[in-house]
Structure formats: C-alpha cells, structure tokens
C-alpha cells in the first residue's frame, strides 16, 4: 500500500514556511530598522548565552583564578571535572536519569499514541465520559498528588531498592496532554485508508501500528523529545521519592552536591556543566525538530 500522506510533516513544513520571513517586507525597508532589530536581538542573545559561557569557563579555571576577575581562564584545566567525577556519583546519576527518562518516554509514546488514536477514530459507548475524565486531570496540579503518590509508593515499596526507578517514573508513564495532542494529529489520517486495511483483513492493532501510527511519525517524534527532556529535568517528585544517593536523578544529585561544596564555585559550575551539557548537545542536534515541535504543539493546543 503506497500513500503520500504524512500529516505531521505537512504541518511542520507549513510551520517551516512560516518561519521564513516575509520576503517583500524585509526587502522593502532595509538599513536602520533592520540594523536596530539585529542589534537588539544580539544584546538579548548575549544575555541568554553568557550564563552558559560563564558556567563552562568557570568549570575549567583552577580555583585560585576565580578571584582574579579575569573573564577567560589563564591556565585552563579539566582537573575540576576529574575531581567532581571522583568524589560524587555523577556517572550513576546519568544512568538513573537515562533509565527513568527511557521508561516514561517509551510508555508515553506507545500509550498516548494508542489512546489518542482510539479517541479519534473509534465510536463507543462512554466515549464522552472517558474523554472528559482524561481531560479533567489536566486541571489537577501534580503538587496536590505528591502526598498520595508517596503514600502509595510506601505502601507498595516503590521507594526502596531498584523499584525506585519505577517509583520515579510511574506518575508520568501516560500523559493526558500527550493523548490530546496525538488525538488532534490523527484527524489528518483518512478513515478510508483504515477501512481499506480492514477490508484486507488486517486486525485493529495492526492497522494502528502499521498504518496510522507511521503517518504521524513527526508528531510522535516531537512527543518523545519533549517527554524525554521533561523527565530528564523533573525535580520535585524524584527529590521526594529517591531516598538513597545511588538512585538520585541528575537534578536531585546536583542539588545535594551544592550542600557538599558550599563556596567552591569551580566545583559547582563543573557539576552544573556535567548536568546540563548532554541535554544542550541533544538540543543543538535536534534544534530544528524541537523548535518546530514546540510551535506545532503550541498552535494545535
């Protein structure tokens, strides 16, 4: 079966078109307006980027240089990185963050897509109640649920040992926002296509898995990336649930690291760099998709 409908892509292409500045406008007024726009954007850009540069520069300075008031390091060194890696459990925290983010992202991609599809393409009794029941959970701030979640985790021993991975991940393994996003995207999948597959004798799961889901791949990719980033940076719930150092996620480990090295800013900046650089690299690699995805979800939602 051949088809050229790639719904998410079409939308992203439209968005990409929108990101191209209107040609007529920029050509008509050159010089001062444009120059001023660049100047203001550059000043703003410097304000956005300087903290990151300062973080990295500080992390490669030997401690005595911190009071020298020089912007660039005189004797750059990676010694701080070795010290921090040797005295903390950073490599374990990386592993924990990756495990938790993978558990929740895999689950979110599978279930949000499946449920979004069902709510879009199927008619069944109780549909409205289920729809409202899922949508309604968006009104409840997760802060209100942490005490009940913690009670449940203690009750089922999810707060000790390896179960902590599940304990940290379980609140986010299915998301109402993701379901509604995917539900919107399945609008673009034509019902005729699904009916044709039914006549060919394909079962419903196969139709979803082999025909419908591949058509919304770009939307699924956006969902996966946001979920990964969100879980990677999650703080309050992992802070509450993880009760031993070996099970901290990166943000939690980083937060406790401060207490141990109060005024050693070169160490704190090294730790902050270690925690943020991997995700910044992921962001730089996928920046097109991420920024388009944000624009897409924002306009759809």
């Amino acid at each position, binding site marked *: 079966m051949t088809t050229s409908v790639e719904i998410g892509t079409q939308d992203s292409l439209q968005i990409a078109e*929108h990101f*191209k*500045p209107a040609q007529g406008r*920029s050509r008509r007024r050159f010089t001062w*307006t*444009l120059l001023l*726009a660049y100047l*203001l*954007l550059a000043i*703003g*850009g410097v304000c956005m*980027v300087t*903290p*990151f540069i*300062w*973080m990295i520069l500080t992390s490669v300075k030997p401690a005595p240089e911190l*009071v020298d*008031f020089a912007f660039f390091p005189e004797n750059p060194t990676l010694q701080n990185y070795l010290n921090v890696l040797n005295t903390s459990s950073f490599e374990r925290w990386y592993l924990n963050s990756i495990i938790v983010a993978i558990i929740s992202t895999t689950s979110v991609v599978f*279930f949000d897509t*499946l449920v979004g599809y069902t709510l879009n393409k*199927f*008619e*069944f009794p109780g549909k409205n109640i289920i729809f409202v*029941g*899922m949508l309604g*959970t968006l009104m*409840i*701030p997760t802060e*209100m649920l*942490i*005490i009940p979640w913690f*009670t*449940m985790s*203690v009750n089922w021993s999810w707060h000790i040992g390896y179960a902590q991975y599940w304990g940290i991940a379980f609140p986010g393994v*299915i998301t*109402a926002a993701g379901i509604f996003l995917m539900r919107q995207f399945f609008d673009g999948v034509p019902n005729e296509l699904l009916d044709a597959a*039914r006549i060919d004798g394909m079962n419903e799961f196969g139709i*979803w898995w082999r025909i419908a889901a591949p058509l919304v791949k770009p939307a699924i990719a956006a969902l996966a990336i946001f979920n990964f980033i969100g879980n*990677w*940076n999650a703080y309050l719930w992992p*802070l*509450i649930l993880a009760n031993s150092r070996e099970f901290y996620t990166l*943000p939690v480990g980083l*937060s406790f690291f401060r207490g141990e090295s109060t005024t050693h*800013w070169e160490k*704190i*900046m090294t*730790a*902050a760099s270690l*925690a943020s650089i991997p*995700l*910044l690299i992921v*962001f*730089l690699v996928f920046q097109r998709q*991420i920024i388009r995805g*944000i*624009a*897409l979800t*924002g*306009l759809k939602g």
Partner: protein
Amino acid sequence: MRLTLHQRQIIWAYIFMSVALVFFVIIRWYPTILAFNVSFRDWNVFEGSGPWVGLENYQEIWQDAGKPRSSVTAAFSNTVRYVLFGVPSQLVLALAIALLLAQIRRLSAVFRVAYFAPYVTSAVAVAFVWNWLYQPETGLINQGLDLVGLPQQPFTKSPAQALPSITAVAVWQNLGFAVIIFLAGIQQIPSHYYEAARIDGANAWQLFWRITLPLLNPIIVYLTVLGTISYLRLFALVQNMSPQGTGGPLKSTTTVVLEVYREGFSSYKMGYAGALTVLLFFLILLITIIQLRFFSRRVEY
C-alpha cells in the same frame, strides 16, 4: 456467535484504552480524592492512614497566617508576586523578541537556539549558574557593576532584592518557549491583512495595535494561563537559590510549593501540607477561570 463490525470496534476501543483507563483511575483520580482526604486528617504517610481531624489543618493554616512573620502568609503573597512580576515581563519581552525575529532573515535560527537553550536546561543547574552570577564581590554581574562605577548589589542575599532576582531568572529560563509560540503565531497572520491596511494608510504602530495584537489574542491567553500556572508552582529555582533551600532570606522568596515540601517532607506534617496543596489547587483553578473569562475575546476578521 458473530459480532457485528461495530461491536468488534467497541471491544477493540476498550482493549486499546484499558491500560490508560486503569492509569487514570489509580494514578490520577484516586490520588486526587486521597489528597482531599489527607487534608482532613492527621496523616501519617508511612502508615497510609491517620485520624480524621475535620477542618483542623485548615484552621491551623489560618491561625499561622495570622501570626507575625508567618511562613504561610509569606508563601502565598510571594507566589502571587512571582506571578505579577514574572508573567507580564515574560510576555512583553517574548512578544518584542518574536516581533524582531519576524523581521530578520539571516541568523534567525541562531537567535532562536540562543533564546530557547535555557528552556531545555535543568532548573537546578540554572539556579546554580545564577547563584554564581549574583555572588557579591566575585560574581560576574557585580564585577560588571564595579567596572562601570555602579555600587555592588546583594541580589539574592537581601530580602528586598531576592524575589525580583529569582523572578528574573525564571523569566530568563522560560522566555524562549513564549518567543517560539509568539513567532509561530505572528507568521500565521496572512500578509494581505498588512498590505490592505498599508494601502489604507496605516502606519507601523497602527498595524501592530489593530492587526498583530488582536490576532495574537488566543496565543496571549494561552501563554498567560500557562505562564501563570508555572509561576504559581515555582519550586526548584527558589529551593536552589535561597540559603539552605528554605525560601529566605527572612522568608522573602518562599513559595506555596516550597512550604508544602518543607511541612510535608521535612517536618512530616502531611495533613497540613496536604491542606496547603488543596488551597493551591483552588488558587490555580480560580485564577485560570478568571483569566479565561476576562482575556478571551473572539476576534473575527
């Protein structure tokens, strides 16, 4: 017995949704009810129960709020101030940047990456970098002030400056998201609206007030509601930017969620913390309803 196609569809729909239904009932709705229940009890999280005390937790909050230098009063009034300072500055800055970005063609992608980078960075890492930037004597900002002959500022070390200083960081971190959404919105406005208005003799100022702003209304509402909710739930930045994570100096930066964390998970006063989360829920609900009422006007062209 042979099932009709529609009957089979119903069965498939429920199979597809089964895991999600269980999730929403057990992980979302049951904990929501439990959260209200906890707030009426002297809850012991490790026993998963506690004696019913009626409205006592709420009465205690009310009494605490009446005491001089009360944490609860500080938490609620600070939280409202974070919203009042943060949301408008975030929206105005983001709109200005998006309007500038819509004018330029070259380097547009570079600027978008620069403005968006803080949004994908962990709030804990962001907090530490800004702690270092805000440092008295050795911090980059105070060195810069020295350089241009201005007096050094205490920033997060002073009760008067701490809250605006943390708000500025929150704005810095969340700005990029609003910029991207605004930019996508601006570029969705058909250019013939502008052309027609220009033929009628409208100037740039009128184009902005009469076309751009009214057409961006739905996006402004969306970003206001989303931004307000995120400032009402502020936690990670405050916990990692105030001394010992207590919302100081002199409770000047503490938030509702920080008090929930401290009362619930440091002092183990779960019932009290639970009552605070219920109040936070109603505060979010109330503000969201008010915003949706007053800010959404349908714009038809």
